[in-house]
């Protein structure tokens, strides 16, 4: 018997702005902004080519509550393409594109089936096989109560759950429609199509409980290849194939500076590493991490910003697209500055608690600008502490 084949994607975040792209020029930005659409186009093209039985999209199609009109129209066009080849689409909206947002709604073609605010079931027949899809759309931004309880248990036919949310007790992400794995397993569905978490992960194999991740990384924390799952279900087994769509890959690249002394050699070493990387993954936004920098001339590490600019220039208007987001230099291996001076100062910094830090930053953070800044976490303070120490040492070195 031919397997039931469907595509599982989520978190398209179409037309999403890219975060943390400081000092990127308009060209780079335009190129990046195009990438969510490019990834989406790849997804559609794959579907048109492979003709799955249906497609599920589990929330966060759009990035903002305001749902970019452009994004909606592009989505509409994609759906129309699928309609042409008779592929039904089942989708739910998530926290980013919840139903309460004020936006202009673009009509979707008839092959698109949208889940309502309440958990509901949609049925379809594939080759005499009844498929039941369960899911809901976010009525507003926050859905903190567990929605899983409203999902019915599986009965006859093949049941597939669509759920946009996170595992309960996950400290890292804000909690949306929390669930536990066992709760999902208890429903006895054949497949749990999850959304919301952008990192691709399979929470369980039996049955598959899957976050496909988003289709295009949008900042430094969304590294690596991004895409969707092509799922085939047969009565005996389930198979999942990951298909990459990301147009631009966020990644980190370690460059060894061993044996390098001068800037031009350093640049070519970086270029070599980057070229190798792009040969593998295509366009990238890359964070360079330098190691073994002992041999480098001192001025190179001192004028980091300049070197970053110079390196960026090398890739201006090139294809594949390369954006070097940052260069990380290792901390000075030893401090020349006498302990007598630095020690006490550094000790002072180390002694600061979170409250001290908050006191320190409040001048800016409680300023009206504060609302444009992400709140600082203890981890941030730790990072800031290190940076401050490095700066202090550096400055002392320079002045002394």
């Amino acid at each position, binding site marked *: 018997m031919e397997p039931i084949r469907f595509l599982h994607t989520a978190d398209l975040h179409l037309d999403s702005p890219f*975060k943390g*792209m400081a000092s990127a020029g308009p060209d780079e930005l335009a190129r990046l902004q195009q990438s969510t659409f490019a990834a989406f186009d790849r997804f559609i093209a794959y579907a048109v080519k492979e003709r799955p039985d249906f497609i599920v999209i589990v929330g966060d199609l759009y990035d903002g509550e305001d749902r970019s*009109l452009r994004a909606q129209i592009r989505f509409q066009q994609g759906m129309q393409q699928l309609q042409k080849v008779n592929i039904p689409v089942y989708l739910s909206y998530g926290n980013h594109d919840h139903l309460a947002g004020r936006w202009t709604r673009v009509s979707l073609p008839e092959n698109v089936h949208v889940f309502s605010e309440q958990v509901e079931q949609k049925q379809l027949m594939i080759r005499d096989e009844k498929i039941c899809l369960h899911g809901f759309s976010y009525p507003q931004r926050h859905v903190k109560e567990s929605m899983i309880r409203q999902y019915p248990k599986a009965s006859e036919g093949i049941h597939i759950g669509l759920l946009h949310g996170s595992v309960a007790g996950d400290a890292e992400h804000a909690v949306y429609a929390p669930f536990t794995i066992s709760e999902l397993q208890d429903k006895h569905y054949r497949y749990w199509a999850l959304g919301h978490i952008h990192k691709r992960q399979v929470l369980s194999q039996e049955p598959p409980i899957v976050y496909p991740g988003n289709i295009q990384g949008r900042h430094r924390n969304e590294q690596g290849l991004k895409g969707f799952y092509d799922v085939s279900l047969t009565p005996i087994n389930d198979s999942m194939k990951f298909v990459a769509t990301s147009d631009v890959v966020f990644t980190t690249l370690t460059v060894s500076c061993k044996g390098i002394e001068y800037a031009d050699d350093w640049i070519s070493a970086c270029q070599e590493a980057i070229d190798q990387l792009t040969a593998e993954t295509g366009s990238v936004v890359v964070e360079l991490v330098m190691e073994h920098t002992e041999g480098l001339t001192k001025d190179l590490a001192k004028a980091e910003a300049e070197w970053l600019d110079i390196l960026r220039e090398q890739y201006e208007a090139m294809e594949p697209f390369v954006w070097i987001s940052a260069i990380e230099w290792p901390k000075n291996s030893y401090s020349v500055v006498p*302990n007598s001076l630095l020690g006490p*100062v550094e000790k002072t910094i180390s002694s600061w608690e979170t409250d001290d830090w908050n006191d320190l930053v409040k001048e800016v953070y409680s*300023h009206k600008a504060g609302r444009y800044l992400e709140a600082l976490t203890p981890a941030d303070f730790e990072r800031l502490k290190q940076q401050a120490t490095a*700066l*202090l040492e550096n400055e002392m070195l320079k002045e*002394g």
Partner: protein
Amino acid sequence: MKIRKILLYGFGQHENLEIDLRPGMNLLYGPNEAGKTTIQQAILHILFGFPQKNQQELRYEPKTGGKYGGCLYIEDQAYGNWMIERVRGKSSGDVLIRFEDGRMAEEEELKRLLRGYDRQAFESIFSFSLFQLQDLEKMDENDLSRTLLASGTTGLDTLWKVEKKMEKEMGGLFKKSGKIPPMNKKMAEIRELEQAMQKEQQKLSTYEPLTIRKQELDEQVAALRLEEHRLYKQSEEQRIAMQIVPLQQQRNQLLEQLSHMSDEFPAAGIRRYEELASKQSELQLKKTRLEKEQAKWQSELIDLRPDNERRQLERWVAQEAEWHRLRTERLSAEQEIRLLEKKRQQFSNRLGLTEDQQLSIRQIDVSIQRERQLEPILEEQKELDQQQKALQRLLAEAENERQEAEQRKERNDRLRLTESERAKLAKWPQLQRQLAEAKFIVSAGNKQAPNQMVPIVILLIGLAIGAYSVLQQQWLFAGLGLLVAGVGAWLWKQRPDSVADQQSFIRNNEALAAELEKLAERDDRQQRDQRQVSTEIERLDRKLQNYAEEMEQLHYKKQQAVKKLQELVQDEPFDLTCNIQESFRLLREFQDAEIDQRTWQQRLQTTTQQLQSLTQEVENMLGPVAEESLFERIRQELLRQDSLQEKHLSKQQTVLVIREQLQETHELLEKTATEIQNLFDMVGVSEKEPFYTAYQQDQDAQLLKRQLKEVEAQLSLYSKEPLVKEWTIPELERQRSETTNRLQMIRQEVEALVDEQVKVGHEISQMGASQTYSELQQLFEVRKAELEEMTQQWVIRKAVRESIRQTMSEWKEHQLPAVLKQANNWFSRLTRNRYATLGLTVEGYFEAITAEGQSFMMNELSQATKEQAYLSLRLALAYELVERAPFPIIMDDPFVHFDNERLSRMIEILTELQPTHQFLYFTCHQEMKSKWLSEPHTIEIGPKVKGEIH
């Protein structure tokens, strides 16, 4: 950290100096100028670098120019033992650091080993002289805390600098109520972006109403388009009807008109006729032109000589060489003749001929035979002449001789003695005897005999001469001889006659005797000569007789010869006889010349004749011509004739061609005329005018037919559907304008709607495709990220600044009091509780307070007490800093003002510090070492010490 050994390679006056030091107190003693300060400076120099050359401090480079620098061996618990060497190199010297474990290091590491202290900072605490101690006077609290915190000025300053810098950079990034700093700017930018986004969003919210409006528009437009179409169709029908109705009417009219006309007219008759007519006139013109041309060409065929003349010319040209030859010949003949004439003239001149003679000379026989005939006769004649001449000469000679003899006779006659003389002479013999007697008488004693001899000699000579002369017939000499003889005779006569008388007698008669003697002699001679001359004359007369006879004979002979010659030459015109050979030769040549001349004359004549006849002939043909340019003229003529001939030929050709053309034209003309006639015949007319009339009629008919055809063609376009209704034009027009109006109205409406439709559609599609919002969103994110970055920079700067500030205040608040306390402690101990505390005034200056609570400013204290206060402070500082800066304390005789009591307390304190601190105490006071309880390690510096150095 302790110095174990000082090794100076060359420093100031020291050379290869080695000093071993110990932990605790090291007393370095030396008199003035031993080099104590030099050693102290050496330590500082080696540790902190040689002073720059432009600095005030001395560099202590050896005057000898040897090796400069030295090294220190350091014991260091924190970093392990190390040694530092500094030698000449760059201006601060080349430094080398080696650790005990063999590691090497450079400047950077040195900074660390020196705990961040620079020379100034070091000197402010650890190295001081009496003089430097007093620097403390100027210190206030700040300076002190600095000195204390520090790490001396530099390290601390660095911190402060960093702090200031951070502060500045923070201000450069952000100001609470600023506008200019980048963070503030960035915030403003973000705010603007936010607003722009909101605006954009509002704009996008019109999307839905617009889509609805678009739908409406679509519907309206569709309905209107339908109506428009209907009306359009109607109007089309009416338009067609409008066109068809008049066409039909026209057709009928045309058919009517045509029915009255019918005739045939040759196709393109008029065109053909006109072509023919124009051709005819053209041909006519051509004909006249050709005829004219023909006449002209024929008239031009002149000026050419007949053939025979031209041939004659050619012949002449061929004869040119001959002609030239003739001319040359004539010329040479003329020359020759002239030459011969001259020659002849010459001959004639030479011969002295007259004209007649010249003429007759031609007949003279000048043959050799004749010459021979004449020659002997002439010879004979000549000979005779010669003989005659010789005879004549002889005759003349004899005549002369005779004359001479005559003369001589005459002369002789004159010499004949006169009568007186004869008488005298007759007396001579008597006198002669008398004289002889006288002489005899005298001769005995006459001594004058020689003298008597002189006149005799002279007389004799004269006589000799006279005789000789007569003999030689030299009459002049004879005279002379006579004269001489006379003198001699006279002299003789003068001689004395007798010795006395005798002498006088002798002298008287001597002359007479000589004269008489001479006369006798002369008489003799004269008689002899007379006879001689007479005979001579006789002989000469005879001789003359003979010669005359001979002469006669010869004359006769000659006459005979002349006669004979004359016979021979009597018929010659002139005398040939003189120089017969030359005459003959000349004559002969003359005759030859004559003959030649004649011959040349003849030739000249013939040549001239020929030339003249030729010239004559040519002139006959060409008119008068100068002889010289004759042939030139002929050639010219020939050339002219040739060219003319050529032209003539081509003209003839042309004439021929023209004739042919003329013929052709003529034929064509005839043909054309026939054709025209044919045309006329076809129409049945014989004239041009009626022909044209016929044509006009035909044209009209044609036009009508065409019009009909056109109308029918137009009609055929519409004929698919027959007209539904019989229209009248006015009705049709009214209906039509109504339809058009309605149509126009609808169209306007549609246009407006479509405009809106397009606008709305455009707006919608623009909105759909608009990137503005997402771009703004992205930019918003970017700006936020940038703000975040800057904020981070700001935060870390603030963290640095804060930490520095906090640390500083901590030092100030806790460590300064500790130092002061320690200093107090020592100060009161030194002064034996005279002063209880060392404190700071409100203004931050030091003061000393007595146990009684009285306070003194520093400068109010005695010299020694002041020094003690400072020393206490310094030592307290060193004491407090022992962890961070465990340096040896180097002192240059700072205790000289101390009294024994205070000195010993001082030494006590130092001794207490010895376990933790190393001291280098330089002094010039030998007794110093005795002040210590246990004698300290002492090093003597000076010449003596130097000896020990290896």
